[in-house]
């Protein structure tokens, strides 16, 4: 087998995922057909639900904001050659910091709530990520295992806090609600089109986080260290890069990213903290990061896709009650399967197509290899 042919960037980042998504939808459509509904109607309901109305866009972008945060939390660490499976727990624990500060400041003004809860959420998320990072860096405890375990610890800790410590009077397992003047502004306050959608000011934090990540990874010394460690730990050590430092700092940044989800979801939308508010968004972040090839542009697109699947799936279930909600989950799972686990499936085909175009015959010493 020949070495990988270099493919144009747009093929890797756009065309290949697009083909994967298309395939996922075709198979999902078959499942819809088996149930006896028209797949085209279903796909249209999904698409229209996600992008057909201002409200649909609002929900889609709101979910996408969550996925941007949890996706970046995986991607940044992946650049350093590690898997952060702990976004779920990091976002959950960050919710505690975010809501405590929000409830503390909610009699003042939303600006204080926004910045106060953002700082608290990033700190708590970081804290929850630094412990496994430290264990990995100093003790060699595999970070996949420790971050998974920390999700469980977060769940137990948070349900204790929510049901025993910071419970609203008369409630079962949630905090009190943020007072009116402390609530973050929704974009629908400014643009009527987003009516009733939860899209809020944290959306701009999501965009800022994408830009920040790009600059961090590709335009700073630290980013260079992160990429070097990820590409070749031995070379990094030889170059005098401290693995301990890079692992801990990259996990700290990742935890802060995951933590921002708390500002968007708990403070911005639900205005209180409920048990299990993360709802698996941390895990979907893994798929988002992989589908987006750990690149901010790719993550933005992948987050948008998953946001659309969540919102469109909801509308699909509304419009076609015969389609069980489990089928919506199946379609989401197919997208994850084809973009994540089988993401490279189309590579050989695309290589054959594009290698010929990119390398015209006369100056291509690799032609023989390509044919083989």
């Amino acid at each position, binding site marked *: 087998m020949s070495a990988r042919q270099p493919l144009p960037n747009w093929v890797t980042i756009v065309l290949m995922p697009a083909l994967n998504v298309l395939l996922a939808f075709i198979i999902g459509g078959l499942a819809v057909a088996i149930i006896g*509904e*028209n797949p085209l*109607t279903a796909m249209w*309901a999904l698409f229209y639900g996600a992008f057909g109305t201002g409200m649909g866009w609002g*929900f889609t972008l*709101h*979910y996408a904001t969550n996925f941007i945060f949890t996706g970046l939390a995986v991607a940044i660490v992946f650049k350093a050659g590690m898997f952060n499976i702990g976004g779920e727990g990091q976002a959950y624990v960050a919710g505690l910091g975010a809501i405590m500060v929000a409830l503390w400041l909610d009699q003042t003004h939303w600006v204080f709530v926004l910045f106060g809860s953002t700082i608290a959420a990033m700190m708590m998320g970081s804290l929850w990520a630094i412990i496994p990072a430290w264990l990995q860096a100093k003790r060699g405890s595999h970070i996949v295992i420790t971050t998974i375990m920390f999700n*469980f610890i977060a*769940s*137990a800790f*948070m*349900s*204790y806090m*929510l*049901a*025993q410590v910071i*419970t609203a009077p*008369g*409630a*079962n*397992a*949630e905090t009190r*609600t943020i007072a009116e003047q402390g609530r973050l502004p929704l974009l629908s306050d400014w643009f009527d089109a987003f009516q*009733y959608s*939860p899209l809020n000011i944290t959306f701009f934090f999501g965009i800022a986080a994408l830009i920040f990540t790009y600059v961090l990874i590709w335009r700073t010394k630290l980013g260079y260290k992160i990429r070097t460690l990820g590409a070749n730990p031995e070379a990094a050590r030889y170059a005098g890069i401290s693995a301990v430092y890079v692992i801990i700092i990259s996990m700290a940044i990742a935890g802060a990213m995951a933590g921002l989800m708390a500002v968007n*979801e708990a403070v911005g*939308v*639900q*205005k*209180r903290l*409920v*048990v*299990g*508010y993360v*709802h698996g*968004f941390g895990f979907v972040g893994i798929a988002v990061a992989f589908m987006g090839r750990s690149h901010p542009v790719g993550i933005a697109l992948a987050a948008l896709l998953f946001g659309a699947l*969540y919102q469109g*799936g*909801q509308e699909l*279930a*509304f*419009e*076609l*009650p*015969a389609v069980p*909600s489990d089928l*919506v*989950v199946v379609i989401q799972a197919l997208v994850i399967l084809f973009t994540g686990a089988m993401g490279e499936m189309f590579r050989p085909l695309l290589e054959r197509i594009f290698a010929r175009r990119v390398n015209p015959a006369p100056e291509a010493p690799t032609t023989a290899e390509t044919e083989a």
Partner: protein
Amino acid sequence: MSVQNKKFTGAKAVLGTAVFAALMTGTALAEPALIYDAAGKNDKSFNEMAWNGAEAYKEETGNSYRDFEIQTDAQREQALRRFAQQGQSPIVVPGFTWAEPLNVVAQEFPDTHFAIIDSVVDLPNVRSVLFKEEEGSYLVGALAAMKSESGTIGYITAFDFPLLQAFGCGYVQGAKAVDPDIEVLQNFIGTDFAAFNDINTAGEVGRSQLERGADVIYAAAGAAGEGALQAAADAGKYGIGVDSNQNYLFPGNMLTSMVKRVDVAVQDAFMDELNGEWTSGIVSLGLAEGGVGAAIDEHNQDLITDEMQAKLDELTAKINSGEIEVHDYRSDNSCPVS
């Protein structure tokens, strides 16, 4: 295609503008709706009971209803609003997590009727249905204590929050009323709503309680409870089911079930709207109202001796008359006995 059909099927098409007028004023002819809590429709417990109630309404009246399962918390308000905008009424939501979203949406649709189960939303168009779980649990606790030979009984629940503590606290009170020396083991299965579906861990916890000497286990953990009941049955001991009548699961090894008639609450809400008898406000369903109780049927009547039945009747009468006041954990977040 069916998007369009949906709007024009059934009574609505026939009655045309009359229905439109009725919808505008929020009166009886609207289709009712049910939105499940996070655990989803088929949880073999709380949400499924609600679904059973809706199905019973459908069977009895021949009328249709809409139902919906949410995937995330942000969808709660969205789903409520969608149904309200479509003119659905009443919209019933089982589960306390609905309180805050309902509080928001119910104010936007003052002419739509809503019902919430297990929590209170104080609005003129909302019915809040509460169950006195502690009363039903008291009765099954008394039965457990009478059945136990080892002097140790168990209580297994999903995770630690006041509603589930109320089940456990009532259970302990009932057991101690019969046998002040009885030991009650109390364990949680997990740490969040996923615990309600974690059958395997429930089985582990059940086996651990059996090893510690428990010979009757009360499993108040939704679908997961079946794991603990299975463990009790496998060991030849007794289990007590919850919410729906689960006596049929392991005949001979099911002492009883603490039924909580969520289905009746849903069906009543639907029927009241249909009959134009809707009432808002707090509805509290205890033993006297038939909202909770200990289920005795052909699957477990051999296990209930005449003496136990007599005691059961006596306690029921005393609770109904107010002679016995079962402490509700939720009133002060503590339990007088343990």
